[in-house]
């Protein structure tokens, strides 16, 4: 059993005391010498059959008698005040059961400074009203009958415009989200003044849209004072807390369920308005309500990766030792702060390289566009593009191999907290694996034929992915010797069900088929945090292992009595318990559980603390080869080699999938994806036709050069996160390869044809 310690941290200054809670499991970590039989194998997904037959239930698939369909009316203007709203005609339409708007909805606080339905609208797509009706068509008809009189207000679109002194204010108090977040160690300005080689460039990254194939949405139903929500969310517990709080319900009367979801990528890591709107409509109508966003709403109002502008300065000695890093970062927050994991673009400047003098300054800027939210490695993707491009520029300035420059400067310790990493050589391993597999050669010259030029580039990254407490799991053994694992985490499509089932089966000594994992339900599961930060396997995996270990201990004690042996002499494998050295004295797990049934073996597990005095981190490096057509400006990514240090690999197929999928999103970010907003604040490509995401023919050959090495200091399973990191270095590696191929540096994503052609034209010497 995990032991819970609560320490009182007395504040001493009259403010409230705080409590520190530590749960220790006493489990010895699986290290590189532990022989594992289930963990580490490429099992197919445990829910595969559900998904290929169409049975898998998503938020909009729930069948309920009397289900109504909800739609939301959204602001057509980027900034406006609602002067008057009249919903009488909509309410009178046959088939309409509930209507909500500023005039009729409860005054529920939303965002730090707004209401669920606010009179002030701050972006095209902001919520104005909502209806629930017998059919989608009737709901759409009803929205057309809502009469709204808007008072247009001055608005601003885009970072640069919003920062001008005369810019219209998105809200009172101006367009800065707050004072800049400043970090400093050493004296970067002095080091830059003294550095013999300095790079000073400005980079920009675009606003990108998640475009999960399943939009945000939920189905809501009431049973008296009990609310059940099937939400497409990365955090059932966060949604429960938010919905309960806003509706004034106790948490045990709100049940949030997520069986399957069609992607999240960060955009579903917070509770969004739709959950509360659906609950309110369902209560008002007295019928269940389904509210799924359509693609346009998804791309207007369900989050995005914030655009950035980053001025980067690097200082180095002639031998290529970094002496200074300075970054000034502006990022486009959109109209509201939505919470969740922020885009911490500064972080990678502070951590990736060993450097005594570092300054970062980051400021968020409000604009009249949809709000930004975490998007797979938020901040790191944006920061890495600039930092890793600048490092390539530095290598060129020093006439040094970009790989050699990185090998000289990468960090082996967390310089922000002065702690060594548990895997100080993690990044070196990635550089070496990637370079070897790719055939990275310094002396290689760009090649090409006709208008096509080939070049190579590389980039690296670090990321958290350590996991953290708290997080819980239970294990119960049934009478027939099968096992069930219960946890409140969620599988957002990454394969969490499968990875956690493997952990449980390993510890229980059972074949995988004899273990079933339940998750994604606040009513049955124990608390687990949001599935974000690439932390789920490393957070819940150890909790599942702890719960299984507790069940195993009880199982072996019971078996010891039956076999007349000491528990320490028993071995448990493949569902059979044997007495060491006496092969004929054996029992199946089911023999034990059946004899004690209906008494039941149960194990409870908690996530233990992260190591004291050390920092847990993940790393990676990618090498790419591109071909640029100098006549058309088209960039084709020919191949990518990706190497990532994520501790033990619990399931190679699942990890490969994360790498392939993330690199593909990286190609999209680098070359094609960009939300386009016109001067009137209207998003011109809020759809999947004009917002381009990679298609099957766009995908390069990707090799995952695995680094499968347990990190036993990280946690009891030795596994760390992999979901986000492989997206981080792809875009800068591509930009660096483009420079290698054609000698022009593109400092802005996406590297579109238009940008490339303009840069190539500017680069070409004037005809004599």
């Amino acid at each position, binding site marked *: 059993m995990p032991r819970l310690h609560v320490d009182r941290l007395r504040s001493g200054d009259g403010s409230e005391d705080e409590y520190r809670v530590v749960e220790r499991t006493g489990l010895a970590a699986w290290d590189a010498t532990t022989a594992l039989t289930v963990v580490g194998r*490429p099992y*197919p*997904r445990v*829910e*595969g*059959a*559900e*998904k*290929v*037959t*169409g*049975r*898998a239930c*998503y938020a*909009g*698939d729930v*069948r309920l008698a009397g289900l109504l369909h909800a739609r939301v009316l959204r602001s057509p203007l980027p900034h406006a005040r609602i002067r008057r709203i009249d919903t009488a005609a909509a309410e009178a*339409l046959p088939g309409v059961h509930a209507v909500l708007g500023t005039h009729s909805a409860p005054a529920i606080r939303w965002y730090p400074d707004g209401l669920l339905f606010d009179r002030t609208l701050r972006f095209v797509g902001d919520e104005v009203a909502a209806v629930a009706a017998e059919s*989608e*068509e009737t709901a759409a*008809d009803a929205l*057309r*009958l809502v009469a709204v009189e808007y008072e247009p207000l001055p608005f601003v679109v885009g970072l640069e415009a919003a920062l001008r002194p005369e810019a219209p204010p998105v809200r009172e108090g101006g367009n800065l989200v707050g004072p800049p977040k400043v970090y400093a160690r050493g004296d970067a300005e002095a080091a830059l003044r003294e550095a013999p080689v300095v790079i000073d460039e400005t980079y920009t990254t675009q606003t990108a849209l*998640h*475009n*999960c*194939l*399943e*939009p945000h949405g939920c189905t809501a139903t009431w049973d008296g004072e009990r609310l059940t929500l099937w939400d497409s969310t990365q955090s059932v517990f966060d949604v429960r807390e938010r919905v309960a709080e806003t509706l004034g319900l106790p948490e045990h009367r709100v049940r949030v369920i997520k069986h*399957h979801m*069609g*992607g999240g*990528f960060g955009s579903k890591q917070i509770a969004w308005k739709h959950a509360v709107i659906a609950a309110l409509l369902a209560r008002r109508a007295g019928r269940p309500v389904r509210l*799924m966003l*359509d*693609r346009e709403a998804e791309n207007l109002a369900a989050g995005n990766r914030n655009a950035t502008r980053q001025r980067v300065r690097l200082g180095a000695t002639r031998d290529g030792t970094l002496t200074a890093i300075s970054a000034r970062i502006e990022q486009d927050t959109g109209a509201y702060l939505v919470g969740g994991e922020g885009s911490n673009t500064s972080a990678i400047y502070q951590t990736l390289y060993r450097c005594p003098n570092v300054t970062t300054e980051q400021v968020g800027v409000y604009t009249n566009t949809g709000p930004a939210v975490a998007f797979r490695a938020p901040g790191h993707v944006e920061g890495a593009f600039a930092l890793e491009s600048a490092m390539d520029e530095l290598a060129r300035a020093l006439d040094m191999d970009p790989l050699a420059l990185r090998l000289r400067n990468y960090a082996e310790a967390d310089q922000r907290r002065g702690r060594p990493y548990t895997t100080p050589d993690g990044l070196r391993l990635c550089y070496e694996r990637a370079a070897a597999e790719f055939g990275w050669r310094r002396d290689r010259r760009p090649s090409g034929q006709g208008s096509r030029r080939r070049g190579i580039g590389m980039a690296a990254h670090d990321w958290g992915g350590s996991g953290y407490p708290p997080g819980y799991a239970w294990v119960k053994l049934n009478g027939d010797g099968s096992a069930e694992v219960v946890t409140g985490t969620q599988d*957002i*499509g*990454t*394969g969490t069900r499968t990875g956690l089932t493997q952990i449980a089966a390993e510890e229980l000594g059972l074949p995988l088929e004899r273990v079933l994992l339940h998750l994604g339900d606040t009513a049955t599961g124990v608390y687990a945090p949001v599935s974000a930060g690439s932390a789920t396997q490393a957070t819940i995996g150890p909790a599942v292992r702890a719960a299984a270990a507790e069940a195993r201990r009880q199982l072996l004690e019971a078996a010891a009595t039956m076999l007349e042996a000491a528990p320490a002499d028993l071995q448990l494998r493949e569902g059979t318990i044997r007495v060491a050295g006496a092969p004929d004295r054996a029992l199946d797990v089911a023999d034990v559980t059946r004899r004690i049934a209906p008494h039941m073996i149960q194990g409870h597990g908690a996530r233990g603390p992260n190591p004291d005095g050390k920092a847990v981190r993940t790393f990676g490096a990618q090498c790419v080869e591109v071909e640029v057509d100098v006549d058309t400006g088209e960039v084709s990514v020919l191949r990518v080699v990706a190497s990532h240090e994520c501790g033990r690999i619990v399931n190679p*197929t*699942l990890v*490969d*999938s994360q790498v*392939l*999928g*993330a*690199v*593909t*999103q990286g190609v999209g970010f680098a070359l094609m994806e960009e939300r386009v907003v016109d001067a009137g604040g209207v998003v011109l490509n809020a*759809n*999947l*036709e004009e917002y381009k*995401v*990679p*298609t*099957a*023919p766009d*995908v390069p050959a*990707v090799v995952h050069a695995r680094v499968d090495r347990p990190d036993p200091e990280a946690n009891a399973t030795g596994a760390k996160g992999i979901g986000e990191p492989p997206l981080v270095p792809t875009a800068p590696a591509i930009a660096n390869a483009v420079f290698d191929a054609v000698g022009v540096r593109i400092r802005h994503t996406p590297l579109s044809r238009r940008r490339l052609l303009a840069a190539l034209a500017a680069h070409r010497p004037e005809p004599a």
Partner: protein
Amino acid sequence: MNVIPIRSSSEIRLTVNGRPVTLEVRPEALLLDVLRDRLQLKGARRSCDMQVCGACTVLVDGAPVSACTYLAVEADGREVLTVEGLADGDRLDPLQEAFIEHGAVQCGFCTAGMLLTAKALLAEEPSPSPARVAEYLRGNLCRCTGYRKILDAILACAAPGGGTR
């Protein structure tokens, strides 16, 4: 002033996954809504709603169509195959098996459309080249997998002879 048109329903008869079905539908009703909400066949998914992503793909008389933009009345007299009809009882279609085995499924939202598109391709061309498979899938978006394992799974079900490129 908005005018809400009065719409009348009509009767359609079609075959869905081998079973005859008779339904009253409004003229603007989409096949996707009829399948999902009237027939409780949820495998076809709504995503882009404009015939771009392929998540709603079903086969009508063997040809892939986007059910999100296909009127239910157009299916009158035709045979519709959805992902629910791919397996033969408990026996999965080889494509379904291959998708599971190759790890071609992540979140699963694109999966039904991918399977049906692949089914149509292999019926048309039993041994497509890898490049041909990728090209054929251009209208099926997947945000999770990076496509590679989907292509591998489909190629594993193709008859030999399609080459390696």
